[in-house]
């Protein structure tokens, strides 16, 4: 292509790339390196840092609170993902039509996605309030004695999962809808001619053809899920009694309440590695189950 060469080009590249690259180095890559470095220190952000090598990691290995946080994060993902995928798929199938007003419904289902996690978490905290919340009252109408939800050690994490899946249904729906609308109609026709029933068409055509979109949603959800924080912080504050604590919450607490920035950084590194590994695994396994027609 036409363009200057040499110094002039270098200047142009710097001009266009410069700001973005600078921001990247300063606020993403640089801090990443910084996290690694701080994780090898014992530091309260006030005194001078003290180099302690891998001691923070050794401590993490035996830290029951951190293990619980990891387990809870996994618990969150295992609960959230199926709910969001199945619910989102259901909605997508529902709104996949040209019926009058369907765009309005789509917009309504998507509404929770644009609101902040804080609002959603507080809203659900209220809905799931054991004594006078709407959910327990409704459950009571059908004779079920509603649990303590976010005030109960067993139900705190499920409460967070429920609220989170609800919020993201609209997002999954839109992604899967786009996928649905690109499925070739002739496939269905052929299946019908072969006598395949509705269920079978879903299982053999719809879902396999949707796997690219499903894959996309899964990858995004996993990456976001490992970093879950906002709704936990606001809904349960990691409680009661630490039963819903997650990794990022531990990071924040250790930095700003306990004054252990080095230890918190070690947690950050571990979290980052986990996300990398899981994503890499996913990309690797893509070939196994994602069908690019």
């Amino acid at each position, binding site marked *: 292509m036409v363009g200057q060469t040499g110094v002039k080009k270098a200047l142009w590249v710097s001009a266009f790339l410069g700001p973005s690259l600078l921001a990247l180095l300063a606020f993403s890559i640089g801090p990443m390196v910084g996290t690694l470095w701080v994780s090898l220190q014992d530091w309260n952000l006030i005194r001078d840092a003290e180099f302690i090598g891998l001691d923070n990691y050794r401590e993490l290995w035996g830290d029951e609170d951190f293990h619980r946080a990891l387990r809870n994060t996994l618990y969150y993902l295992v609960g959230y993902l199926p709910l969001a995928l199945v619910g989102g798929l259901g909605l997508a199938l529902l709104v996949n039509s040209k019926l009058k007003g369907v765009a309005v419904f789509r917009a309504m289902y*998507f509404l929770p996605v644009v609101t*902040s996690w804080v609002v959603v978490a507080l809203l659900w905290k209220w809905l799931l309030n054991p004594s006078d919340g709407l959910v327990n009252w409704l459950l009571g109408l059908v004779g079920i004695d509603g649990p303590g939800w976010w005030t109960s050690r067993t139900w705190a994490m499920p409460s967070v999962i429920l609220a989170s899946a609800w919020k993201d249904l609209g997002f999954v729906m839109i992604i899967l809808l786009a996928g649905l609308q690109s499925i070739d109609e002739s496939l269905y026709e052929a299946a019908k001619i072969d006598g395949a029933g509705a269920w079978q068409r879903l299982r053999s055509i719809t879902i396999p053809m949707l796997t690219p979109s499903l894959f996309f949603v899964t990858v995004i959800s996993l*990456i976001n899920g490992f970093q879950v924080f906002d709704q936990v912080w606001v809904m349960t504050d990691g409680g009661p009694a630490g039963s819903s604590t997650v990794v990022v919450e531990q990071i924040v607490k250790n930095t700003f309440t306990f004054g252990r920035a080095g230890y918190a950084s070690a947690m950050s590194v571990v979290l980052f590695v986990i996300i990398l590994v899981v994503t890499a695994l996913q990309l690797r396994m893509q070939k196994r189950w994602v069908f690019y027609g």
Partner: protein
Amino acid sequence: MADLALAPTPTDTEPSGGSIGRADQPLPGWSGYRRRARLVGRYTVMVACAVLMVGPFVWMVLAALRTDADIRSVPPTLFPDPVTGENFTRVTEAFDFWRFTANSIGIAIASTILQLATATAAAYAFARIQFKGRNLLFALYLATMMIPLQVVIVPLFIEMRNLGLVDSYAALLLPTIVSSFGTFLMRQAFLGLPSELDEAAFIDGANHFQVFTKVLLPLVKPALATFAVFAFMATWNSFLWPLVITQASDRHVTLPVGLSRLNGRFGTDWNVVMAGSVISIAPIVVFYAFTQRWVIRSVAYTGMK
């Protein structure tokens, strides 16, 4: 029975989607009845889902209008009785929610503009300028998409501290400028434009800047809009970093953080907390009401990539 929720069949009264569903003549009699039943069924389910998805927000607004006694009454009543606006007063008395709103709006707009500017410029360089190491550098950009903010808050905080920017607008704004995703998006958009356009312009004596601004940018408006929507929403709703960096005072607090402080102050006084929530989402809901078609389209567009 009615296969409402399953793959659309050609028996819908209207064709659904480009290649899905065939136009069909409405037939009288039995099949017409079945079709209408399916239609009604489908609408019913859609309305039920709408209640599930939007209902809680309505419940939230109602809660914001209830008195202390009413909010705790069991069984819950549908409409508040009496209706009161005092919760909103209590919210603004406890915290300066006007300031929080202004902060949120200001930061979101500034961040969106900065993101658009830097990422699009970078995307141009990646898409339109051949230079050594271009692919490697772009791979680096992609790689950083994997670095979540949560992982770097400690050093980011330290950085802000060293710059003397803790609890400042600059600190709120600067880390949001990083937008590898936006760069990726815009690069895709530029790659879709034929290079003849550039060449023609260069022959006419334009430089890179003019090609960028006058020739290419106008052609990627949809992608820009998508990017802007994402950037705005993400910044508006961001919580962790603003929480951490504004802990020192109330001056730079944004709406999500302000709401969480309200929650800390009022705990289970749900009517007040819901009033605060209403204030917090009102701007974004209004924004969404006007732009929802764009927003939804943008999300679908990203899913396709």
